């Protein structure tokens, strides 16, 4: 049944036994057992090519040879396995490849082709394996990647509608997040338009999403704790004559202490995010303020905002980059997956806001402690960027404030008046 190549170097040996079972045993079991341990690329490697591209008349080798080789061979039907695994197809050659594939497959190839082109951008950064020993293996990651890029299915495009996702989440919660295996989930969902692979890939994304939410919530909780501490501490010591005692020693500490805050920002800078300098200066000034009433030598840790911003960014970048805008074609879901962690800070408006988490204390507190805290509240570019990225990647999250939406007509009319005739697609 399967001409399964021995798996790629590092993970090959262990898997051979399991993969061997593909040809005989229950597909189900093999998939599930592997899910926990391996990446999806490995998983998909075991797929029978007939399954992946059942209707194509062409040998997949041809397609992927085109894919890997790029422009030079776009016109020809190179059946040879020239691919040396470097799937470095850039935008230009993609078009050539697409054209070539189109030419070969006519209408039927469209799905695969579009899957491939979409996949190319994902494949290149995450799957470049220049060291693959032979062209055959060069194919499989792209097949796997192609299948994965088009949401893990072969022919039909699965739309993770809000309703579908809700059922999925229900099934997962029912089974327990750790025990939820795709075949059981599929059973529980009782839908026949999904394959295990759809579920499997969605599950992986869902798990990583949860992890990030939990991490963020934990960090937010610790952030709010620390703020309380600062408020209490700073508020208590305010009455000591602040200006004379620290004045002498004050200049030295500023360079010494805030750099710890500044340094926290530097790594973020290196990550390629074009942070404006202003926030850095801002943060420095803000950190000075809480220190002034207290002894400057007190070894206070740098105020919390850099920390959450740092970790925030760290986590969110990972999740953001991994999450390409695929399932969210319809953008606006109205369901809320039962994730208790999907909560965000609320502005100080009683009666409207959901549970406050990390936010400055309500204006009822004394002005002094308020001033301490709101200084920390101004977001860094990184955390804003991360939050925005989250919304873009996961629009199914409930709206953080739940404001009343304006009517669509009124918005569109208003936009027209401003000269905006057309909106970009939701997932531009």
């Amino acid at each position, binding site marked *: 049944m399967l001409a399964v190549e021995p798996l790629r170097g590092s993970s090959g040996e262990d898997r051979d036994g399991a993969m061997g079972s593909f040809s005989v045993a229950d597909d189900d079991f093999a998939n599930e057992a592997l899910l926990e341990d391996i990446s999806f690329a490995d998983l998909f490697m075991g797929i029978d090519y007939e399954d992946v591209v059942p209707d194509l008349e062409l040998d997949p080798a041809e397609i992927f040879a085109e894919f890997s080789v790029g422009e030079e061979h776009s016109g020809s039907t190179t059946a040879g396995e020239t691919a040396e695994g470097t799937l470095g197809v850039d935008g230009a050659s993609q078009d050539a490849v697409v054209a070539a594939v189109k030419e070969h497959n006519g209408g039927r190839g469209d799905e695969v082709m579009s899957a491939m082109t979409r996949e190319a951008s994902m494949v290149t950064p995450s799957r470049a394996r220049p060291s693959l020993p032979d062209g055959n293996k060069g194919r499989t990651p792209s097949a796997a990647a192609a299948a994965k890029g088009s949401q893990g299915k072969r022919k039909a495009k699965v739309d993770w509608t809000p309703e579908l996702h809700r059922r999925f989440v229900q099934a997962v919660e029912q089974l327990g997040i750790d025990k939820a295996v795709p075949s059981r989930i599929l059973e529980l969902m009782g839908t026949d338009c999904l394959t295990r692979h759809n579920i499997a890939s969605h599950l992986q994304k869902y798990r990583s999403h949860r992890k990030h939410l939990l991490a963020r919530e934990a960090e937010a909780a610790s952030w709010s704790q620390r703020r309380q501490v600062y408020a209490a501490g700073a508020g208590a010591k305010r009455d000591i004559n602040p200006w004379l005692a620290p*004045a002498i020693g*004050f200049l030295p500490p500023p360079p010494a202490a805030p750099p710890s805050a500044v340094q926290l920002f530097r790594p973020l800078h290196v990550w390629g995010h074009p942070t404006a300098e202003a926030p850095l200066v801002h943060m420095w000034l803000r950190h000075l303020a809480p220190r002034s009433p207290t002894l400057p030598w007190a070894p206070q840790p740098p105020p919390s905002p850099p920390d959450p911003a740092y970790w925030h960014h760290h986590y969110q970048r990972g999740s953001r980059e991994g999450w390409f805008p695929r399932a969210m074609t319809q953008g606006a879901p109205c369901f809320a997956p039962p994730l208790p962690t999907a909560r965000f800070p609320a502005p100080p408006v009683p009666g409207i806001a959901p549970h406050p988490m990390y936010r400055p204390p309500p204006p009822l507190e004394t002005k002094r402690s*308020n001033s301490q805290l709101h*200084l920390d509240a101004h*977001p860094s570019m990184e955390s804003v960027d991360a939050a925005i990225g989250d*919304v*873009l990647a996961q*629009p199914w999250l409930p709206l953080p404030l739940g404001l009343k939406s304006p009517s669509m007509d009124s918005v569109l009319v208003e936009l027209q008046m401003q*000269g905006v005739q057309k909106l970009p697609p939701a997932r531009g």
Partner: protein
Amino acid sequence: MGESSSASYIRMVQHLIEQCLVFHMNKDECMEALAKHANIQPVITSTVWKELEKENKEFFQAYMKDQEEKASEMEAVERRIQKMLAETAAKDSDKED
């Protein structure tokens, strides 16, 4: 799937704006952030913001009031800091004599 593409786009913008509100940003900051990080034309952000404001007047009123309070707090603090720095600088120059 009852929503058109423009409706979902608008909703996405609303979601993003709400996120900015969570961060206590003002309208201009929000327009800038969305343009920068999500490629949303500022005019669109601004329009949706205004519409949201119309629909949620009380919320925005309280929000703006809060922003103003914070702004004045900020100014007070920064003035203090400037003063401190000036004093310290003055002391240093005194010592150099």
